[in-house]
């Protein structure tokens, strides 16, 4: 089918140039293009638009698939439906003011995003973080990882056809929301990390329910394993589906569990340890197959490693302050603000100007978010606002992988493969 034919049949009503370029790009994807024929839909070729409002695309992802019967010949992704321009917003905010926006990027694990931004700012402005704050951040990040993986597990198994399983994982996610409520005062968009530490210390109640969760969650995990590990239906849907070959994985820039399922043990927590990850003992699970099933096993093992990390953090966590005591670098504690004049002035100054890294400084700092390497690149011009702030979003990298692994698969597997790659559009679209 020629481009002009597609254009006349589709008749886009708005964004005309954009639609035209997208269909052109689909036509150009591989060198050979055969003419499309009419007739029996099982053998005919057709172009299928999926999304951006499709429930299985995990947000607002749009796929344009060219089908030959039930096989996907080639596919193009169209992203940007959730583009809010956070990088532009960041250039007009102080570093601390920008942090709540990071909650809304990867909204399935807000805690990791907060920590990623704060560690990058601390790196560029040379801020020391107290020991206790590091451990609180690690606990928060690992809980966020479990929460994110639970959502992936529920939706992925639902995409594969088992609806009730979704309720099981959400029962556990609900407990993590309650923990986040105790830690930060918010259930969903936590905004708990601060430049120079965290907002507040863990209360006794919070510590108690984290301990309870880490004691009970492995049992639940075992139940999930029991249901899925030898499940014939689950295997048939996932084994050898959406295979990313080991030799291609690095080239097309896969990251996180998608890369680890191809055999590369690339984990920022081991590669360049931040916080206190060099003091806790954990494994980086990897698989060699690179298919959807391998991604399932990698993420399941990551959850149990996370529980190990949280338990070690609770044991090792020292007593002490949770935010650096330097009025030029971090917000003063609320006690100081309410009961001393200097505290009030410092609080006002931090809100007004914020922390000012040296002029011309540049820094990149990455953390291992549940989706992969999440990095913040900051260029400073010496003021309280970043000159340039770039988010290196793992979902963006993994979506590019998706465009490459869908070719040649069956159209019914599309939703399972999207589920296995686990993109979050808030993060990919910035």
């Amino acid at each position, binding site marked *: 089918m020629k481009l002009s034919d597609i254009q006349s049949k589709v008749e886009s009503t708005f964004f005309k140039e954009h639609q035209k370029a997208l269909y052109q790009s689909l036509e150009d994807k591989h060198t050979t293009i055969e003419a499309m024929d009419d007739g029996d839909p099982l053998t005919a070729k057709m172009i299928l638009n999926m999304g951006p409002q499709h429930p299985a695309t995990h947000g607002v992802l749009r796929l344009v698939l060219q089908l030959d019967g039930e096989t996907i010949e080639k596919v193009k992704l169209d992203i940007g439906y959730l583009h809010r*321009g956070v990088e532009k917003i960041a250039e007009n905010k102080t570093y601390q003011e920008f942090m709540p926006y990071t909650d809304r990027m990867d909204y399935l694990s807000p805690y990791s995003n907060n920590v990623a931004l704060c560690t990058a700012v601390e790196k560029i402005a040379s801020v020391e973080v107290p020991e206790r704050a590091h451990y609180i951040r690690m606990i928060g990040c690992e809980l966020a990882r479990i929460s994110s993986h639970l959502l992936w597990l529920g939706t992925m198994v639902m995409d594969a056809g088992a609806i009730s399983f979704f309720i099981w994982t959400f029962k556990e996610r609900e407990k993590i929301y309650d923990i986040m409520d105790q830690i930060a005062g918010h259930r969903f968009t936590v905004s708990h990390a601060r430049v120079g530490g965290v907002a507040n210390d863990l209360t006794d109640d919070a510590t108690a329910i984290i301990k309870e969760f880490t004691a009970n969650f492995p049992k639940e995990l075992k139940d999930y394993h029991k249901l899925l590990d030898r499940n014939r239906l689950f295997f048939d849907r996932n084994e050898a589906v959406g295979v990313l070959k080991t030799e291609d994985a690095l080239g097309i820039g896969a990251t996180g569990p998608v890369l680890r399922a191809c055999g590369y043990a690339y984990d920022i927590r081991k590669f360049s340890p931040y916080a206190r990850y060099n003091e806790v003992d954990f494994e980086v699970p990897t698989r060699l197959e690179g298919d959807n099933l391998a991604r399932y096993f990698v993420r399941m093992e990551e959850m149990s490693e996370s529980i190990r990390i949280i338990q070690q953090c609770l044991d090792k966590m020292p007593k002490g302050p949770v935010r650096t005591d330097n009025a030029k670098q971090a917000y003063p504690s609320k006690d100081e603000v309410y009961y001393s004049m200097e505290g009030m002035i410092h609080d006002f100054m931090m809100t007004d100007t914020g922390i000012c890294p040296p002029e011309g400084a540049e820094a990149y700092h990455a953390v291992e978010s549940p989706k992969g390497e999440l990095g913040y690149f900051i260029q400073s011009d010496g003021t309280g606002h970043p000159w340039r702030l770039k988010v290196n979003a793992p979902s963006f990298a993994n979506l590019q992988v998706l465009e490459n692994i869908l070719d040649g698969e069956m159209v019914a597997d599309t939703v399972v493969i999207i589920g296995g790659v686990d993109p979050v559009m808030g993060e990919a679209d910035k």
Partner: protein
Amino acid sequence: MSLELSEPLQKVVDSLSEKFSDQLIEVYQSSGDTFVRIESSALIEVCTFLKNECGFIYLSDIIGTDRYTSDERFEVIYNLLSFKEQARIFLKVWCDEENPELESVTKIWPGANWNEREVFDMYGVRFKNHPDFRRIFLPEDFDYFPLRKEFPLLGIPGSIELPNTTPDTD
């Protein structure tokens, strides 16, 4: 200024300055990260060398920035990783405001595809020999490059046609 480079990075910088002595402009460190700036004409040779000889097989990100200067306004930064040496290096090139154009590195790292499109979308830096050169986040109908410093935070009214949200009454 003396640099405190780790051993593998020192080796990389040494071999770069030996092989590309004319094209290497500066090497500096900031907040513990290492930045290497080269002439944009030598981009492909340096990238090929870094990938094949120095083990930087993974391209993590491509960052565009607007320096807002009269000459060589745009900066493109390649964030490269070597798993063997556990090292990260940032390769920089500058390009002009008039016709910002660079060679695409998609032949070396296929994953650069979307990242280069993002830089183009935000700053208007064009990449030659790119396999699928389009905007990525914003629609093709949009005429501006929003992360350039002169683009207003509130956007430009009427710059994009939006679907009609009021129901037809007649």
